[in-house]
C-alpha cells in the first residue's frame, strides 16, 4: 500500500492534508491518532470506498483513483469499518454472518468450511455459532467482525479502530488472535487506533494529527525520535530554607543515584491553606508548575511522571526540574526513569499548535505559542480561598442515622455500603461497598456491563437501589435525593451539551437549571469560560468545538453550582491525549484545591493511573479496591515482573513461551512481552530466556518493563474468569 500526497476534503474541511505513507508487504502497520486525525479517511480511500481530492493511493501497485480502478484490488482486500459490530447483521447468527461474507466474496464451499472452522476455533466463537450477532458482547462482535473480514483470505486487511470501546481484556485477546493470524505470513495489515498505548503492537506506526503524519516508523524509534528524558518524581514539601533533593535509584540497580544541587533561600510553597486537605494531596503544586513548563506531565497518585524534552541525560533533566521546582520551594525524589512513549511524543509535537488552545491555529508549522497558553485558567478553582463551598460536608441534621454521622466524622464524601441493584432476574450490581474521601480522585474500572454506570446512577439518585445504603455528600442516599443533587455534579459522555447552542448559552442554561441567581450566574459563567479555556469563543456554536473542548465545557457546566462531588462517566472517550491532559489538570486542581471528590470511570487504562484510588468491578462486584501502586505491587508479587524479550522470530517465541507455561505472552512489534511469574526479575528473566533457547529461538536481550494498569486489569479479570470457569466445572 502506498499513499502519496493524499488529500481528502469534506466540503470545505480538509480532513487529510497531504499524507505520504508506504506500507510494505507483510507489515503490521498502525495509524495512531485521536478522533479527526484522518485515520478513517485514509483507510476508506485505500479500501476503495471513498474518493479523494488529491494525491494518489496505490494498492498492490494498482492505482485506486477511480471506481473501476478500485475494483481491481478489492478481491484481495478485507475492510472492517469503524464501530463495533456495525458492519455485521444483528439478526443473523454468527455462522450466517460468516456465510454471507463468504458468498459475497465467492469463497468456494470447501475453503469456506475449512477457514470457518479454523477462525471460529481461534476466536473461541465456535460454541456460539447459532447465536444472533446482536446478542454478542462487544469483544465477541469485534472478533466476529475480524473473522468476516478474513474469510476470503485477503492479502491486505484494513481495520478501522477495531479496539475502540472494547474492554482491555477483549482488546488484548483481539491482539493475540490478530498476531496469530498474521504469523502465517504474507498478509499486510493496516490498522487504526486511538489508543497510544497500542503502538507497541505494530511493526511500524504513523502518528497522525489533523490530517498529517507527525512521525512514521517503529513505535520505539518514533518515541525515541524526540530527544528527552522521562522521570518519575515524588515531590516533597519542606520548610523554607531547607530544600532537599533526595537522590534515589531508578529501576535498574546499575543506575546510580543522582544528587542534585541544593538551592537555599527558596520560598515556601503556596500550598492550599485549608487545614482539611491532607498532606498527601500537596503534590499538585509541583504538578501545576511542571504542567506549565512541560507538555507531557502526568500525575500518578503522589508521583509525577514528566517528560523533559531536549534533556541529554538524567542529570540534565534532574537539574532542569530542580531549577523549576526548587524556586517554589518544592523538593523531590526521583523514583524512576522510563523510556518516552508515544503519548509523550504526541503531546510534545502537538502542544504548540493544538486545536483546543484558545489561540491555537492547528495550521502548518503551528505558532510559537508555548504549551502554557492553552492551559485553562485554573486559579478560579481555589474555592476554599474565595469563600466557595467548604470542603467538609455540611452537617444537615436531616437524618439521625448513626452510620451517616460516622461518615461525616470520617469526612467521607461518598460511602456506599452493600449496594445491590437487580434488573429482573439479572443482578447488575452485587453488594458493592467503597468510600471516597473529599479531595480524592476515585477511579471505577471494569469491562462493559460490569456495573459501573449502574453504581453511578444509584449514587446520583437517578436509579433506586434494590438493596444497600450509602451516603453522598453528607446526605443519605435513599432519602436525601434532593440534597444530593444540589451537592454533586454529573457528567457523562452521553450527557451532552446542546450542540445548537453557543458556549455561553449552554453555560447560562445550566446555571438556570442549577437555580443560581442572576448575579451569581453571570459571575460563574465568566469563571467557567475561563476555566474551560474558551475565552474568545463564547459565541461559538458548541457543535463546532473540537471534542476535547466540548468535553471540558461539559465539565464546567457540571461545576457551575460548585458541587462537592463530581461524577464522571467516561468523560474523555475520543479525546486526544493533550485534550485529556488538560481535562485532568482541571480534575486534579479541583480535587486538590477545592477538595472536590471525583468519581470517574474510564476506558483508558493510562488514565486509571492518574487516580488516587481504584476499584475494579467485575460482574457487578468490586473485586479490588486499592491505590494504583498497591494494585501493581500485588500483581508483581502475584505474577512476577513483565519482561520484554528481544528475539529473532517473535511469532515462534510467543508460541514457545505459551507452550512453556507463560500464558500471557504477547507480541509487541518486534519483541515479546511475557508475565514472567513471581520471583526476582533477573532470575525470572533467565527462566524465560532458557525456555526460549530450549525451543530454538535466539534471544537477543531480556529487559524488565514497567507494569501498566492494563496488565493489572487483564490479569485480575482473567484470574476471575478462570475461577468462575473452575467453579462451573466443579459443579458439573
Amino acid at each position: 500500500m502506498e499513499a502519496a500526497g493524499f488529500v481528502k476534503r469534506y466540503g470545505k474541511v480538509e480532513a487529510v492534508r497531504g499524507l505520504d505513507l508506504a506500507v510494505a508487504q507483510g507489515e503490521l502497520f498502525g495509524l495512531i491518532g485521536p478522533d479527526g486525525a484522518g485515520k478513517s479517511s485514509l483507510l476508506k480511500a485505500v479500501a476503495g470506498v471513498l474518493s479523494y481530492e488529491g494525491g494518489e493511493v496505490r494498492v498492490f501497485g494498482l492505482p485506486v483513483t477511480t471506481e473501476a480502478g478500485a475494483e481491481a484490488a478489492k478481491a484481495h482486500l478485507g475492510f472492517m469499518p469503524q464501530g463495533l459490530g456495525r458492519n455485521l447483521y444483528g439478526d443473523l447468527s454468527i455462522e450466517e454472518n460468516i456465510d454471507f461474507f463468504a458468498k459475497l466474496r465467492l469463497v468456494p464451499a470447501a475453503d469456506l468450511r475449512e477457514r470457518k472452522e479454523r477462525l471460529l476455533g481461534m476466536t473461541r466463537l465456535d460454541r456460539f455459532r447459532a447465536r444472533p450477532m446482536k446478542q454478542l458482547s462487544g469483544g465477541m462482535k469485534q472478533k466476529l467482525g475480524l473473522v468476516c473480514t478474513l474469510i476470503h483470505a485477503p492479502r491486505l486487511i484494513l481495520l478501522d479502530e477495531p479496539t475502540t470501546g472494547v474492554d482491555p481484556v477483549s482488546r488484548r485477546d483481539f491482539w493475540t488472535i490478530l498476531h496469530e493470524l498474521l504469523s502465517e505470513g504474507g498478509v499486510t495489515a493496516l490498522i487504526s487506533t486511538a489508543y497510544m498505548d497500542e503502538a507497541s503492537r505494530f511493526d511500524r506506526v504513523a502518528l497522525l494529527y489533523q490530517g498529517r503524519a507527525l512521525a512514521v516508523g517503529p513505535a520505539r524509534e518514533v518515541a525515541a525520535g524526540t530527544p528527552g528524558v522521562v522521570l518519575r518524581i515524588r515531590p516533597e514539601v519542606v520548610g523554607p530554607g531547607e530544600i532537599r533533593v533526595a537522590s534515589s535509584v531508578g529501576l535498574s540497580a546499575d543506575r546510580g543515584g543522582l544528587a542534585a544541587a541544593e538551592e537555599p533561600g527558596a520560598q515556601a510553597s503556596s500550598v492550599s491553606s485549608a487545614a482539611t486537605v491532607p498532606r498527601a494531596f500537596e503534590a499538585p503544586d509541583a504538578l501545576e508548575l511542571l504542567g506549565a513548563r512541560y507538555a507531557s506531565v502526568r500525575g500518578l497518585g503522589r508521583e509525577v511522571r514528566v517528560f523533559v524534552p531536549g534533556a541529554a541525560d538524567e542529570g540534565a533533566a534532574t537539574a532542569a526540574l530542580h531549577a523549576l521546582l526548587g524556586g517554589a520551594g518544592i523538593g523531590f525524589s526521583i523514583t524512576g526513569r522510563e523510556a518516552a512513549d508515544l503519548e509523550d511524543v504526541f503531546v510534545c509535537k502537538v502542544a504548540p499548535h493544538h486545536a483546543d488552545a484558545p489561540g491555537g491555529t492547528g495550521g502548518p508549522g503551528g505558532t510559537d505559542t508555548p504549551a502554557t497558553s492553552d492551559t485553562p485558567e485554573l486559579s478560579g478553582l481555589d474555592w476554599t480561598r474565595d469563600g466557595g463551598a467548604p470542603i467538609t460536608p455540611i452537617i444537615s441534621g436531616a437524618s439521625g442515622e448513626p452510620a451517616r454521622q460516622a461518615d461525616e466524622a470520617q469526612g467521607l464524601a461518598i460511602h456506599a455500603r452493600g449496594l445491590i441493584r437487580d434488573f429482573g432476574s439479572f443482578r447488575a450490581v452485587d453488594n458493592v461497598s467503597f468510600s471516597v474521601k473529599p479531595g480524592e480522585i476515585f477511579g471505577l474500572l471494569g469491562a462493559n456491563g460490569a456495573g459501573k454506570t449502574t453504581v453511578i446512577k444509584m449514587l446520583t439518585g437517578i436509579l433506586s437501589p434494590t438493596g444497600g445504603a450509602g451516603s453522598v455528600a453528607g446526605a443519605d442516599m435513599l432519602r436525601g435525593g434532593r440534597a444530593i443533587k444540589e451537592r454533586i455534579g454529573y457528567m457523562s459522555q452521553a450527557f451532552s451539551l446542546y450542540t445548537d447552542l453557543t458556549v455561553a448559552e449552554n453555560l447560562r442554561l445550566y446555571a438556570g437549571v442549577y437555580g443560581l441567581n442572576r448575579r451569581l450566574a453571570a459571575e460563574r459563567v465568566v469563571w467557567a469560560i475561563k476555566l474551560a479555556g474558551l475565552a474568545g469563543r463564547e459565541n461559538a456554536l458548541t457543535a463546532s468545538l473540537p471534542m476535547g473542548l466540548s468535553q471540558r465545557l461539559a465539565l464546567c457546566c457540571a461545576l457551575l453550582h460548585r458541587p462537592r462531588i463530581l461524577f464522571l462517566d467516561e468523560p474523555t472517550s475520543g479525546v486526544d491525549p493533550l485534550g485529556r491532559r488538560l481535562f485532568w489538570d482541571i480534575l486534579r486542581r479541583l480535587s486538590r484545591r477545592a477538595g472536590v471528590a471525583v468519581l470517574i470511570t474510564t476506558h483508558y487504562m493510562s488514565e486509571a493511573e492518574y487516580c488516587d484510588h481504584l476499584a475494579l468491578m467485575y460482574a457487578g462486584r468490586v473485586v479490588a479496591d486499592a491505590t494504583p501502586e498497591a494494585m501493581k505491587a500485588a500483581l508483581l508479587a502475584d505474577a512476577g515482573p513483565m519482561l520484554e524479550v528481544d528475539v529473532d522470530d517473535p511469532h515462534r517465541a510467543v508460541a514457545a513461551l505459551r507452550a512453556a507455561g507463560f500464558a500471557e505472552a504477547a507480541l509487541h512489534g518486534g519483541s515479546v512481552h511475557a508475565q514472567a511469574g513471581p520471583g526476582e526479575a533477573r532470575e525470572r528473566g533467565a527462566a524465560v530466556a532458557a525456555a526460549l533457547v530450549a525451543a530454538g529461538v535466539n534471544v537477543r536481550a531480556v529487559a524488565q518493563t514497567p507494569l501498566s494498569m492494563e496488565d493489572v486489569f487483564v490479569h485480575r479479570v482473567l484470574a476471575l474468569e478462570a475461577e468462575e470457569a473452575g467453579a462451573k466445572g466443579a459443579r458439573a
Partner: protein
Amino acid sequence: MNLIRVAALAQKEWREILRDRLFFSLSFVVPALLMLLFGYGLSLDVENIPFAIHDLDRTPQSRDYAYRFIHSRYFDFKGYVTGEAQAQQLLGQGSVRAVIVIDRNFGRELSADRPAHVQTLLDGTFPYRTQVTKGYITAINTAVTRELLADYMVRVKGLSPSRAQDAVDPVRLEVRYLYNQGLKSSWGVASKLIMALLLMCPPFLTALGVVREKESGAIYNIYASNATRAEFLVGKLNPYFCIAFINAMVLWAMACFLFGAPFKGSATAFLFATVLYVLCSTGIGLLISILVGSQVAAMIVTAVVTAMPSMLYSGLLTPVASMNWTARGVAAVFPAMYYGRIIESCFLKGLGWGNAWGDMLVLAGYGAGLFAVGYAMFHKRGKT
C-alpha cells in the same frame, strides 16, 4: 451478474426482514390497515343527512310536504322543532345539518293557488356536503311542485291525470349509471386505494431497508467487495419487491371480497400492470435511499414524495381529468395516474389488454428510468 452473490444478498435480506418482527409485521400490517381505514372512512356518499322540520303551519298540506323528506332515504328525520331558537341550537351543535321551515300560511296559500313559502337552513361548514344536501332538497321540492302543478291542471283545465303529468314533464330524462350501477363510492375508492397504498408503502420499506444498511455501516461490506452495483440492487431489492407484490395481492383481495368491488377485466393484464407498478414504487424507494443518509430523513422524504401525490394527485379523490393544468402536470409525473387508469378499466369497466397497453408502456418506461437513475447514482466509492 453473479447469481451466487445476488442469492446471498437476497437471502441475507430476507432473513433480516423475517427476524425483525416489527419490520416484518409493519410491512404487511400497515397496507392492510390503511386499506381498512380509508376504505371505510373515505366514503364520499352523502346519505342519512340528519335534519329537523319547523312546521309553523301544522296543516295536512304542511305535514304532507314534510313527509316527503321524512321518508326519503337521503334524510334522517330527527324530529320537529318548536321555535327558531331551537333550530339554531341544533344546527350549532351539529346534531342536524338542515332544518326545513314551513311557513305559517303554507296550507292556506296552496289551497288558494297562491305560491307558498318554505325556507331551509343548511350547515355550510363542508361546502361539498352542503351542495349535495341542497341538491336533494331542491329535487324533492321540485317533485312536490310538479305534482301540485299536475293537480292544478287536473282541477282547473280538466285534463286527465296522465295528460297533466305529461304536460308538466315535457322532457323526460332517463338516467343509467354504467360500471358502478349503484353509484357506490366504496367500489371506486377501494380499487383506487390499491394504487394509492402501493405508491405509499413499498417506497417506505425499500428506503428504510437500504438506508438502515447505510446508517449502520454494513453497506461498506458491499462497497469493499467485488459485488457489482447491479448485483447489489437486484439482491437487495428482491425481498422488498416481493413483499410489495404480496401486498398488492392482499389489497386486491380486500377490495374484491371485503368492499365488494367487482373485478370484471383481464386478470393477466392487471397482474402485469401491478408488477410494473410495484417496480416503479420500489424504484422510488431506491432513489430516495440513495439521496438520503439517515432513516429519519428517508421517512420524511418518502412521506413527502409519495403520500401526498398518492392521495391528492392520483385520481383517488378527484378525477385527474377534472384537475387544473398544474395538478394534471403533477399527476402525470407520478406513476399512480397510469396505474389508476388500468385499475379503473380492469375493475369497473371490465376491459383488458387492449386499453391498458399504453399506460403499461408508460409504467415500464417509468420503472426502467428509475432503476437506470438509481444505478447511475449509486456509487461504491462515495465522497463521504
